[in-house]
């Protein structure tokens, strides 16, 4: 029976302190009864192996003890939807704050690394926010399980609910294919467009932006004797106009995510205009040129050729992506028009 005592001792370790004696006493009696039963069947005392087999069937001490514990959770199923809803709102507010801070830094002409640092510090702010919201809701959950406050609240809300007071169907939501444009997607696009415009306007000579994009941080060094080709100066204003148009569309989409037709049409126009700009950029013979009067111009001709080639291919790739985006917008527009006709036919 030494094995049984050792087993019970192991189970005891994992049990809640207040219940240890009671549970072990009962479990001990049940196991002893089972062992005696088996001995009566076998007609002899059980060997250690036979006893071990009984205990093994009964289960690992940790597992056995865990069954006596009540299931625990930090935030229960009742409160979880509220928790998740609040969490999303608070994280959105924090994210908005950081996005605005980053835009301010861009507008001030701060270095890109400083702007990126400000954006990435959002991740550092997310964890404490997540922890605090979780702690608050965990405390609320304890209160709720004791006083059943939410149960009363949901019962009252449910009693007051009248389906006839629900808002009318949104026009576009009658179309099976018309899913709203996700607001998170629009917010990201809006942020990057605003950041781009601020940058495009702010960065004194635009060359810094393009040089940075093509050569990395080295592009900002004054030792690189490249400057923008004439095509960029021609396109300076059209790029701003196009970006502002995209920002306008994104603001409207943010407010009315169900305006699918508007979204598709606006995207089509902006993408179409972008393709025209790409046409001029790709056609230009040199996107970057050597700064006039560069002393050792011959040394830079090969690097300049490589940079220009890379830029050309990048622009071509961007144009292809924009072209396919335009096709998607056209398909969306056509589907949006066809679906009501089909539903009438049915």
């Amino acid at each position, binding site marked *: 029976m030494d094995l049984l005592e050792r087993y019970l001792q192991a189970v005891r370790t994992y049990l809640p302190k207040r219940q240890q004696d009671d549970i072990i006493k009962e*479990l001990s*009696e049940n*196991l*002893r*009864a089972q062992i005696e039963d088996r001995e009566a069947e076998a007609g002899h005392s059980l060997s250690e192996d036979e006893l071990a087999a009984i205990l093994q069937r*009964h*289960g690992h001490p940790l597992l056995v003890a865990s*069954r006596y514990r009540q299931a625990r959770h930090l935030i229960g199923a009742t409160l979880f939807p509220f928790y998740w809803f609040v969490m999303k709102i608070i994280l959105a507010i924090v994210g908005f704050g950081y996005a605005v801070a980053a835009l301010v830094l861009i507008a001030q002409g701060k270095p890109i690394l400083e702007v990126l640092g400000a954006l990435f510090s959002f991740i550092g702010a997310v964890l404490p926010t997540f922890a605090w919201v979780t702690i608050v809701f965990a405390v609320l959950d304890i209160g709720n399980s004791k006083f059943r406050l939410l149960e009363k609240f949901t019962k009252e809300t449910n009693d007051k609910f009248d389906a006839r007071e629900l808002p009318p169907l949104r026009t576009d939501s009658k179309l099976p294919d018309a899913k709203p444009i996700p607001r998170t997607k629009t917010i990201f696009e809006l942020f990057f467009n605003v950041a781009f415009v601020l940058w495009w306007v702010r960065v004194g000579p635009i060359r810094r932006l393009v040089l940075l994009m093509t050569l990395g941080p080295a592009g900002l060094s004054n030792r690189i004797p490249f400057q923008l080709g004439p095509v960029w100066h021609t396109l300076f204003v059209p790029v701003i106009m196009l970006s502002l148009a995209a920002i306008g569309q994104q603001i409207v989409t943010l407010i009315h995510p169900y305006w699918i037709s508007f979204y598709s049409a606006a995207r089509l126009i902006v993408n179409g205009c972008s393709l025209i700009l790409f046409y001029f950029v790709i056609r230009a013979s040199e996107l970057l040129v050597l700064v006039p009067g560069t002393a050792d111009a011959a040394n830079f001709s090969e690097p300049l050729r490589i940079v220009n080639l890379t830029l050309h291919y990048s622009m071509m790739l961007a144009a292809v992506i924009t072209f396919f985006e335009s096709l998607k917008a056209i398909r969306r527009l056509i589907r949006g028009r066809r679906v009501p006709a089909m539903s009438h036919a049915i």
Partner: protein
Amino acid sequence: MVTTIHSELFENLRMELRRGSLIIAVLAQLRTEHYGYALRKALADRGMEIEESTLYPLLRRLESQGLLVSEWREEDKRNKRFYRLSENGALILKELLEEWQSMNSSLNRIV
């Protein structure tokens, strides 16, 4: 892989289906007083096998919910904890049995 997922899914659903039925079986069996191991044997004799590690904690939970009452008593020179259905437990069992029968007959009509 598909077989494993299938069997896991089946096992989960089977456990879900069994969970409620086990409670009815335990409550019904405890219309007569039993201690833990004897109850397990009685249920097994009627075709309802339950693991000890499931049954014993379940008895304590049902007691804490007021559906069972228990007392320590000596039997065969051993102290054992005997459980039986409480008055409240009997009422709940009656309602559960009605619900189970109604569900059973509905299911029979459906499948």
